[in-house]
């Protein structure tokens, strides 16, 4: 049932990674490490890798991670989001191997002729840049939630999954627990809205933490039998909500068979993760710290539940 879970990955070539290996991943995985060590790049690599079921999905993933990073530049006109080939060209090479597949992508330029080379498992395809037709974005069970949660479109799409699961009531309960002034949530006319004092109000009137929170919960339903990647999971979320958030992630991911990778800098978020996992006797978790060794190579230290609970009980510094 969970054969699709990523348990190990080698990132041969991508951004700051070369010959990087990490293993020991479980259903819910928290990633930590100092600034600029490559946490988000690692998550992007896992995202592209899991999406690489075919060239179309891999391409849209490569474009998607660039768009996510360039949102502000796109907004100010420094980047043209419609020029998707420019977005794709921003990643020159990607190569990875895992327990689920091996894949690579590279831009090859010879004699002023540009070719995109894709290798997924044993299949190699070379496409001339002139003939390359960019595929449309496909709805997928593999998603990234950035620092502040999804846009309206992302939440609307994921909310459909909540509706298909008939879980609107539960979702209302979850948002009420987050803020007891909120009576409910609905998508009305393509706009996500929260009900306060009997009146529905646009999501933009509320804080980023709430948007992040509802994106994560809806995402867990939407990514059934898939993967959910969450950047800076604690962003905007008060520490008193951390335990409840992890309870929801640990229980919903099990129900929907969704593998979760989340990034945090926060000690409180890490402590909450360990505390809740222990309380729920959840062993299908891991905590990975990305570090740099003496040669400045990026290395992963992955702790399973036993190691994490031990380290936390001894008060060891693990971030």
């Amino acid at each position, binding site marked *: 049932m969970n054969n699709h879970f990523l348990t190990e990955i080698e990132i041969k070539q991508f951004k700051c990674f070369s010959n990087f290996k990490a293993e020991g991943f479980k259903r819910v995985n928290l990633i930590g490490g100092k600034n600029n060590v490559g946490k988000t790049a690692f998550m992007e690599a896992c995202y592209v890798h899991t999406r690489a079921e075919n060239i179309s999905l891999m391409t849209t993933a490569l474009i998607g991670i660039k768009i996510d990073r360039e949102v502000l530049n796109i907004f100010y006109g420094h980047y043209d989001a419609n020029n998707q080939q420019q977005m794709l060209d921003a990643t020159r090479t990607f190569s990875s191997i895992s327990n689920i597949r091996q894949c690579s992508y590279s831009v090859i330029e010879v004699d002023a002729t540009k070719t995109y080379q894709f290798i997924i498992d044993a299949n190699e395809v070379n496409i001339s840049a002139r003939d390359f037709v960019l595929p449309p974005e496909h709805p997928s069970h593999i998603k990234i939630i950035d620092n502040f949660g999804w846009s309206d479109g992302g939440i609307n799409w994921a909310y459909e999954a909540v509706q298909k699961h008939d879980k609107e009531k539960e979702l209302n309960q979850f948002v009420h627990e987050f803020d007891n002034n909120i009576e409910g949530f609905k998508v009305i006319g393509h706009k996500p809205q929260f009900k306060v004092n009997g009146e529905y109000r646009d999501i933009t009137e509320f804080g980023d933490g709430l948007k992040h929170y509802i994106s994560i919960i809806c995402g867990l339903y939407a990514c059934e039998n898939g993967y959910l990647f969450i950047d800076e999971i604690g962003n905007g979320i008060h520490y008193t909500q951390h335990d409840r958030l992890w309870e929801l992630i640990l229980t919903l991911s099990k129900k929907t068979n969704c593998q979760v990778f989340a990034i945090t800098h926060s000690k409180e978020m890490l402590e909450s993760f360990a505390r809740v996992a222990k309380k729920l006797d959840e062993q299908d978790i891991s905590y990975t*710290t990305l570090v740099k*060794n003496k040669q400045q190579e990026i290395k992963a*230290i*992955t*702790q399973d539940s036993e*190691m994490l609970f031990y380290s936390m009980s*001894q008060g*060891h*510094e693990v971030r």
Partner: protein
Amino acid sequence: MKPIAIVHEDTGHKNLILALIEHLNNLENLNVDAQALVDFYPMGTKSNFFKSDRVEYKTLKGRINSDQIKKVLFILDADFKKDNAIYGGFSNTQTQLQQVLDKLAIEGVCEIFVLCNPNSEEGHLESLLLETFPEGKRKCIECFVQCSKIKPQSFYKTILYNLHKTAYPTESYYNFEHPHFDELKQKLRNLFMDCHND
């Protein structure tokens, strides 16, 4: 992550190390902030040191292999050969632990200090401490043990500290000036040598 790990049996060992670090800080300006530099790994009992699948070792190995832990000191009791022919005594303890470290492939960053009576190469922390007491004090304690007919081994292990505290309330439990502590002092100096300014 902290660059130094000290793997020990119990609180008695940890207290000894912390007291000796403080002593070296005061007398030699070692200038070590143990809280900032050291993570302690209590193993509970000596037998756990020889189980290579222990969670403590799994945790240490990941941190050593990625250069996050630079040095490790193991501190454990020698105990007695008559109680355990394989693991008892200074030499057996040292050899058996070294084999575990070799198997884990972490021996390059590890140092071992086995606590015992340096003359008999058997015993435990309290055996070492007793040997470092001034002669008069040691004789008094030994006479007391003899008169009370308590088994000396169990006596020292469990209540030497309380007896010392009661009988010599103003005197330090640790006589760090004694030469029997020289080797441990040197191991601590080596441990912190390259980790001060990280």
